């Protein structure tokens, strides 16, 4: 603890040098955290976990929600398939079908079914009743609301559809936080698809182990129909449709590694310069009785503190930035919310700490091994 305080004094009393080093570390760790946030957000929406029970039924060979047109009367048939717990027809309307940073997605659902199908939706502003009472009302996800600066009572227009914001919703499902839920008949008419036609059915299966078999049964049922279906887990669809986006975000991993390497080099260089500039001071401490281990620890603590303070700033800035900006990547109607997460924050801090430690190992070794008498006589 005493050595840690001494290291902290060394940092705080060389303000400009410490500030410049920490600013560099913060910039590198900001980039690392940004990349990790994207990677983590992507993994959240594409990796199927053991408790995922949601299937999405689309028209076979669909490209975009606009090309997936299924008759609404498929619903009772789907509900009767063994293993299906519940199903809901959904109409999708998007402003941009390709990859976009600002996608607006309307989801039209039967108003009476929304809460039953999606019980973890929480209305954080406005009311669900207000949404039920007006056919052109929308419940919008909180990320979407923040990005657009919308609140209950506001109206907005997108994809040629005008709606009134009845409430802001929050959900454990990232997709829900980035869409606008409207009543199905309203969206069918407003988007000129027409009543009786939907984009997809979302199906909940009673057992995660039966996802594949239920999906096959659904597709088998409508194989010979005029509108054959293609059923997959929701996350698998995202991984498939957003393949290019997935590859692009996958590539950013190298940027993250580059940022880590840059931070490592920066801290190592800074600590090495500190050690070189402090040869005589180190020799004084050795003369006073500071052991090699203590000298090494003192240098390491300084590197760790530089890494941790600079890295913590960068990580916190990245988390705050993504929280504030609420970026969303959209593709074919599915959205990827770039959402900061506690695990990413902790990972960033651990990486910063390890980088500080790793970067100071060699300088610490050098300082601990320096000969006392020659160092005292050094100019």
């Amino acid at each position: 603890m005493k050595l840690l305080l001494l290291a902290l004094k060394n940092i705080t009393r060389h303000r400009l040098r410490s500030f410049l080093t920490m600013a560099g570390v913060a910039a590198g760790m900001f980039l690392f955290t940004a990349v990790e946030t994207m990677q983590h957000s992507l993994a959240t929406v594409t990796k199927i976990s053991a408790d995922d029970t949601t299937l999405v039924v689309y028209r076979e060979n669909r490209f975009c929600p606009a090309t997936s047109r299924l008759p609404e009367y498929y619903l009772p048939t789907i509900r009767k398939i063994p293993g299906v717990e519940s199903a809901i027809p959904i109409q999708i309307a998007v402003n941009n079908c390709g990859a976009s940073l600002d996608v607006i997605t309307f989801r039209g659902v039967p108003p009476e079914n929304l809460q039953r199908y999606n019980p973890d939706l929480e209305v954080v502003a406005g009311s669900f009743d207000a949404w039920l009472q007006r056919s052109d009302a929308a419940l919008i996800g909180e990320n979407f609301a923040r990005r657009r600066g919308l609140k209950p009572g506001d109206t907005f227009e997108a994809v040629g559809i005008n709606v009134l914001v009845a409430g802001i919703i929050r959900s454990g499902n990232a997709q829900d936080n980035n869409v606008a839920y409207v009543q199905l008949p309203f969206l069918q008419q407003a988007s000129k698809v027409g009543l009786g036609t939907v984009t997809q059915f979302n199906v909940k299966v009673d057992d995660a182990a039966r996802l594949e078999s239920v999906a096959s049964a659904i597709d088998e049922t409508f194989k010979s129909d005029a509108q054959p279906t293609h059923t997959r887990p929701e996350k698998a669809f995202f991984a498939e449709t957003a393949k290019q986006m997935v590859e692009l975000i996958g590539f950013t991993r190298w940027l993250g590694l580059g940022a880590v390497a840059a931070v490592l080099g920066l801290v190592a260089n800074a600590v090495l310069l500190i050690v070189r500039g402090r040869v005589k001071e180190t020799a004084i401490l050795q003369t006073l009785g500071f052991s090699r281990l203590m000298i090494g620890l003192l240098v390491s603590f300084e590197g760790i503190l530089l890494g941790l303070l600079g890295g913590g700033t960068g990580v916190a800035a990245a988390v705050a930035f993504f929280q504030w900006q609420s970026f969303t990547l959209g593709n074919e109607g599915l959205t990827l919310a770039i959402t900061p997460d506690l695990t990413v924050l902790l990972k960033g801090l651990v990486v910063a700490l390890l980088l500080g430690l790793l970067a100071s190992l060699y300088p610490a070794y050098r300082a601990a091994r320096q000969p006392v008498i020659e160092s005292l006589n050094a100019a």
Partner: protein
Amino acid sequence: MAASFIQIRNLTKSFKKGPNLITPLQDLSLDVPRGEFLALMGPSGSGKTTLLNLIAGIDSPTSGELVVSDRDIARLSRAALTKWRSRHVGYIFQLYHLVPILSAFENIELPLLLTSLTRAERRVRVEAALDLVHLADRAQHRPTELSGGQEQRVAIARAIVHDPDLLVADEPTGDLDSESAGAILRLLRKLSTDHGKTIIMVTHDPKAAAAADRTLHLEKGQLIEQTQPATSGP
């Protein structure tokens, strides 16, 4: 006769410098009683600083016996020697060697960081050391805000704060004006007579040496003369 505080027998220090073997100390023997203020004089390269560093435990001899307070420090490992030094030795440098980013108080506190004293106990010790060197009002000043004489007094406070038996001083007045040098020598004299510290001081200045109980003259790594002033005092 009581055993000497420092007993040196046949002490030799040599090292290689390029192809040459340098021997700054050759077969030197010496006894220093507890509480003595001893001055080492001699021309540059005579081996006095080497002897001082060996006695202080920051260097190790090539051969011979070096017993300080009944402990043969020539046989201690590097780690054991470091630990011994932190408890038993206070080192005063010619150029003070204070840590520039630390205040006078923090510089003096440094040796106490190696002890198990609490923060409050350390504060009491540091304040006592500051009082002893008459710098209580300069506790929060950085070295750059102090005069040379004040810096050396802070260095002396740092050397005595952990209450070592032995003080070694390498030309402690070499960089000071005569007034400041006199004050430093009176302080060292006081530490020897009033506090019983054994002091070994290297100096080129006969006036400084006159403050000591005894002066040894070295040349080419060997003792050549011993003088004892009739009266002590700078």
